[in-house]
């Protein structure tokens, strides 16, 4: 299956991209995060939540079909 990964805020700087495609087997969000942190080690220093198809989910969620994944970091600025 094919996932679209979107990076927001600081994460777009850490990965040097705002959006990319990722070919993968069925996996949990936890496993996906591990894959992404291997690809972008600096993601390990950041804090973010994951949304699958515009819904925030927890790390146990299993991604089974093509989906849009968003990595959302907290912002502090005002």
């Amino acid at each position: 299956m094919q996932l679209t990964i979107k990076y927001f805020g600081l994460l777009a700087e850490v990965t040097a991209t705002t959006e990319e495609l990722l070919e993968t087997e069925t996996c949990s969000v936890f496993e996906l995060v591990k894959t992404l942190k291997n690809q972008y080690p600096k993601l390990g220093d950041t804090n973010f939540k994951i949304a699958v198809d515009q819904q925030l989910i927890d790390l146990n969620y299993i991604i089974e079909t093509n989906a849009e994944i968003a990595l959302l970091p907290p912002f502090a600025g005002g």
Partner: protein
Amino acid sequence: MNSLHSRYQRQIILPEIGLSGQEKLSASKVLVIGAGGLGCPILQYLTAAGIGTIGIVDFDIVDTSNLHRQILYGTSSLGKNKAVAAKERLIDLNPEITITTYTERLTTKNAISIFLEYDIIVDGTDNFSTRYLINDACVITKKPLVYGAIFKFEGQVSVFNYQNGPSYRCLFPEPPKAGSVPSCAEIGVLGVLPGIIGSMQANEVLKIILGLDTILSGKLFTYDCLTTRSSNFGINRVETEISKVLETSSHFKTIDYDLFCGIQKITEITPKEAFLIKNVQFIDVRDPHEQPKIDSLHPIYIPLGKLKEKVNTITKEKEIILFCQSGIRSKKAVEILLQEGFKNVSHIQGGAVALHENISNLTGLLKYD
């Protein structure tokens, strides 16, 4: 038609508002925390719309570098407390409402009693420690929280704690590591972005008061002003996060939110103490144009935004004392140097303004070793 009606006529004729809606706005009390980039448009629109009572919390003072985005202020506001300067502009905009200013820092000691005076709390602050404090105080006092935050060209908006909806902690249970998310002072911000995000926060406040059924609760709205991409993400309420906060209500006043956010204690010294310390390197973290210069301390000049990249040029052999105009940016500068491994770092209370006021009495104390 009396003056009240003519002032609000264009919104009263909307069927969603009407006279009854205007009366609801006029009877409502809204607290805006932070009168900065987000706070200015929030306050401007809420005042113009005729919110009956508005509270403004801000301990900071207006600085030249604020003016490109903090649109309530002009050059005549420089050096004034932001809550006070905002009120001056807002009572001219609408003298028919009540505005209360709180010029002290929001803390666990005063938050609950202030929040209880208001119907809706709006977060326009610029740091995680205050954002968690505000969220938790809203959970404890059962007040809806209109949240907005920005990072470079992106913004987030949501309504938390609204009719059993999720709270900020249901979205982000833990703060990021201290210093891992840079602030506007470090990385910059386009003036229009807080204008857009703050205006959206004001819009949510009005919708809550008017009882419109399309509140941004349970959703995180994100906007990127470079790509004009916007998204809405669903957020679920997490009962364990809410309970954890409620359990703290009996000892809320003793919680250290800086510690929770991993912020190290910042040493603040008076101008007199600064003049007495030996083997010291002063650093002026203001922008080059800012006056008055404090030449007698022989500072090196590194603006806050350049501090990280120039950190290798700073000696670790001496005690470091930082100052800015008023003591706000220098505090951030201390945080940066502590993260970079400096041990003996402090900053001057009241900054160059306080130094300048005391300088004639203090230059006699200067020691040259």
